[in-house]
């Protein structure tokens, strides 16, 4: 099992989060990649329900999780951490130059062309739920998102993965799309839904998810 208190690689994660975020917090992306390459890591837990301690901002200037460190680097931003883990490992990034660069492009597309629209929808459906403006704004955010996902779906076509074999591009696209699990939007694009299902069926994903959820379960607040 890659979670090992004596490992040299360390990630930060939250001790507990509400149900809407469980299984989506971004340390999952790093746990998943580490599982794919069988690299052990230890976890340092932070409290999500209070502001992060000031010294944490030295590691992660925006106070988010995950931050990562190993014997070589100290890093934040899940995209940068994934690239660090993948850069010399063909299981996460093809060695062929063109496929390698295009896999990076898919990872960045997930982070910069898809996720920002999804976050707009989460702001409406979760973080500001019930506010009057969310009702009026939602249809146009959904339309914009579905247009973008339509193009993503077209680019995937009937391929198993975006570029040859599974890479950090697929990992990030799937991690980003999973944030729509409270809606039926991904289901409107059967090949994207199948991509998510294929990726979630990977043993490495299953282990990463189980490990994140186990921490939350262990620290669950007592019912009020």
């Amino acid at each position: 099992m890659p979670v090992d208190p004596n490992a040299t690689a360390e990630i930060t994660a939250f001790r507990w989060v509400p149900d809407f975020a469980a299984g989506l917090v971004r340390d999952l992306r790093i746990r998943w990649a580490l599982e794919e390459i069988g690299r052990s890591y230890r976890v340092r837990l932070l409290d999500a329900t209070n502001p992060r301690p000031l010294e944490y901002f030295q590691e992660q200037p925006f106070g988010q999780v995950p931050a990562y460190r190993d014997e070589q680097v100290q890093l934040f931003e899940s995209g940068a951490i994934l690239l660090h883990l993948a850069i010399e490992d063909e299981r996460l990034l093809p060695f062929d130059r063109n496929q390698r660069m295009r896999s990076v492009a898919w990872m960045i597309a997930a982070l910069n062309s898809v996720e920002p629209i999804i976050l707009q929808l989460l702001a409406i459906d979760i973080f500001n739920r019930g506010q009057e403006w969310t009702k009026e704004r939602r249809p146009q955010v959904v339309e914009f998102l579905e247009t973008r996902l339509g193009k993503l779906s077209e680019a995937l076509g009937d391929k198993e993965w975006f570029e040859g074999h599974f890479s950090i591009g697929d990992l990030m696209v799937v991690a980003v799309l999973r944030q729509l699990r409270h809606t039926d939007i991904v289901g409107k694009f059967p090949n994207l839904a199948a991509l998510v299902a294929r990726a979630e069926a990977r043993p490495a994903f299953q282990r990463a998810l189980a490990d994140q959820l186990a921490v939350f379960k262990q620290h669950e607040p007592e019912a009020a």
Partner: protein
Amino acid sequence: MTIPVITAYNWSPDRGRGLVRDMRVRWALEEIGQPYDVRYLSWGQQKESAHRARNPFGQVPAYEEGDLVLFESGAIIFHIAESGPGLFPEDPAARARAIEWMFAALNSVEPVIWDLIIAKIIEGDHDWTAARLPLVEARLGSRLGDLSARLGDSEWLEDSFSAGDLLMVSVLRPIEGSDAIAKFPNLEAYVARGVARPAFKRAFDKWKAGQTGETPAAFAQPKHEPEGEAA
């Protein structure tokens, strides 16, 4: 390197500010001293299948270099930074931190800036925007505050200018001169330092020289369209 070809618009709805994303790629190419050619599209051609084959989202830029066809300006800049000296430090740990700032720009800072632009320009005439705007401004202010605290009085985000600074300055440029950034004088000065670089100036002049297209009828009124900014 085979001379790369980038795809750019010959007209942009940004009133001469050079905010479309081919500017970032031009700037990166100028920083490493790599000559390039430009394939110009008229506004609207980005949606056609010839360009969609290069960029699946139908945006600019696309980047072609021999048999490599690349999209997403962040990925193109990563590739350029790996191709020549000047944008990535040689030390692997320092290089990883430059990459970290690229992602911070693309995923932690740019989305909150878009939010403000969308709210103010694209959705500015909806009644409900007034109720939403304070949330957007608070989120942006908090993110920029964190960035400002980290930058402190340093010249660049790490020891020397890197692809991380190139992208961070690029994502901050749309709010240059706005109240949102005026609260953070060190960020304003940081952006000013970035755009004062000779490579930026060369990129901007070439971009400007390429703006030869007619204003499309839909833009005869001064109004932006989402994909003009997010291209």
